[in-house]
């Protein structure tokens, strides 16, 4: 594979305890991300918004380029050579991405557009099938809108009850009353990592508690899969959704993993070409999973790019990625604590990952982000699709910096200097 050949980082990690990347390694990684050569407003690009969407290495861009140049064709329906190559690449991507998250069977892995679609698929197909009037659905107060609104709509439709695991002031799940909350619940949906606070939730524990209460466990893996080793078998959850674009992959593709027994028993969601077995004019039978849930021509090039992204991450090593991000976050939190007039939200370092939400004096997050942008620093500003959580934290908006494989300690200093500029402009000491 061209993508694999290009990776300069393929040597196996032999160190017993994973170490953060060395400066040389990060420099190498950076050289593989073309966008990092951009200079917005004449400044070097300091990209601290990977939690919204990560940048892409050349290996991923090339894999898709190569696909379109050499073997694009609709899949599974053509017997000719390039169609076979495309089908093979698509199914290999499925199997590889599945292995990456610990799926035991490629049939459990459904390609979707993004995590949002994956969660909706569960809400429509599993949800409409199982949730009846009066049933209980449990969420947490820190869910992204994509793991909240689909359940609201389901609950409204079915007159089901929504319950929420509260969030403590420092941004942790308050698990004190969990068993009461889970009592007689049918489904517990929660994020593995908060996209606003960086909180790392105890997924294995939460899944076990869900099961003990007779509920299935639906995990929003959007922020976890890109930044730490994930093993759905070990977590013992029932569904997990995640997006390629947050983990070095392309836009337009994501995956829903689900337990085979559950998927097998679920009715179709989107229907049409590709998900049927026998079609008559007024009724049809459906293909087995995963095809049953992939109606229409899929995102083939995107699956190929997704696969290359997983190759890239696996070559770096997820444990090391996690270590490196933690190191950057630790340094950033320390440096931020040294500054005046800065409020950082979320839990202490041991319970979080490299996503940092903050406010500076009375500067609104939007103004802050604009000023940071003028220094080439990209951070997100707003509610981060977490309106209820912001309400709870009592802030209308925060600025959020997030780190990923290509970020450096030097960039933290540029970030801090840009925060100083904002304070200067807003005349804050």
């Amino acid at each position, binding site marked *: 594979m061209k993508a694999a050949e290009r990776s300069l980082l393929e040597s196996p990690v032999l160190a017993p305890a994973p170490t953060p990347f060395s400066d040389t390694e990060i420099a190498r990684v950076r050289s593989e991300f073309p966008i990092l050569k951009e200079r917005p407003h004449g400044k070097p690009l300091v990209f601290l918004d990977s939690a919204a969407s990560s940048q892409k290495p050349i290996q991923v861009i090339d894999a898709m380029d190569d696909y379109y140049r050499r073997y694009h064709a609709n899949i599974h329906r053509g017997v000719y050579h390039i169609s076979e190559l495309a089908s093979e690449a698509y199914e290999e991507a499925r199997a590889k991405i599945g292995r990456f998250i610990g799926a035991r069977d490629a049939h459990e892995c459904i390609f979707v557009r993004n995590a949002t679609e994956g969660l909706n698929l569960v809400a429509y197909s599993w949800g409409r099938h199982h949730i009846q009037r009066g049933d209980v659905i449990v969420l947490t107060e820190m869910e992204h809108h994509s793991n909240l609104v689909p359940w609201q709509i389901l609950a409204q439709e079915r007159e089901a009850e929504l319950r929420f695991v509260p969030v403590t002031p420092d941004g942790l799940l308050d698990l004190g009353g969990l068993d009461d909350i889970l009592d007689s619940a049918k489904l517990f949906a929660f994020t593995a990592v908060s996209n606003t606070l960086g909180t790392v939730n105890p997924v294995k524990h939460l899944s076990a508690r869900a099961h003990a209460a007779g509920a299935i466990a639906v995990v929003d893996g959007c922020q976890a899969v890109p930044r730490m080793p994930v093993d759905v078998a070990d977590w013992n959850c029932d569904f997990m959704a995640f997006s390629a674009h947050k983990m070095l992959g392309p836009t337009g593709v994501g995956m829903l993993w689900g337990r085979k027994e559950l998927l097998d028993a679920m009715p179709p969601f989107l229907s049409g070409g590709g998900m049927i077995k026998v079609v008559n004019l007024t009724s049809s039978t459906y293909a087995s999973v995963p095809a049953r849930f992939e109606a229409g021509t899929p995102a083939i090039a995107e699956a190929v790019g997704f696969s290359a992204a997983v190759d890239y991450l696996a070559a770096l090593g997820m444990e090391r990625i996690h270590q490196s991000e933690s190191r950057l976050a630790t340094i950033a939190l320390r440096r931020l604590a040294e500054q005046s007039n800065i409020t950082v939200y979320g839990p202490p370092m041991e319970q979080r990952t490299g996503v940092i939400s903050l406010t500076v004096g009375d*500067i*609104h997050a*939007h103004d802050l982000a604009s000023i940071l942008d*003028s220094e080439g620093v990209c951070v997100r500003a*707003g*509610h981060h699709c977490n309106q209820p959580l*912001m309400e709870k934290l009592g802030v*209308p908006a925060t600025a959020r910096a997030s780190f990923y494989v290509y970020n450096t300690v030097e960039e933290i200093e540029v970030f801090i200097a840009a925060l100083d500029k904002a304070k200067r402009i*807003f005349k804050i000491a």
Partner: protein
Amino acid sequence: MKDIAGMDELYRDFILDHYRNPRNAGTLEHPDASFEDVNPLCGDKIRMDVSVRDGAVADVRFRGRGCAISQASASLLTEDIKGKSLAEVERLNADDVVANLGINISPARLKCALLGLKVLKHALALEYQPTEEEKAYPDGQPS
């Protein structure tokens, strides 16, 4: 791309002053017209209360939360319209808001700047003319 202002230029003293000390802040007890809206992009929120006499704006108050651009623009707008006829208010558009700020801003921030005018026009049931940007780029993904 239009020229995007330097940050010092954008956040000049009078803007910060309008942000921190908004003019006509608050509510009216018996407004003739009132409306509140949010910019779902960022959660910026503005409410406008207007009293109208003889076809002109007799008084106006606003309350809001959000970025300096949205709050200062709203504050400047309230100063602008007092005593103006509704016909004059109807003619106000994005250019006037930008003129008030005294500087060109990027499309994303323009949305912030225009929130006050939108809310005002909606309150008075006047037609709001979308900018070229707004026409070309519909609401999009607000969150």
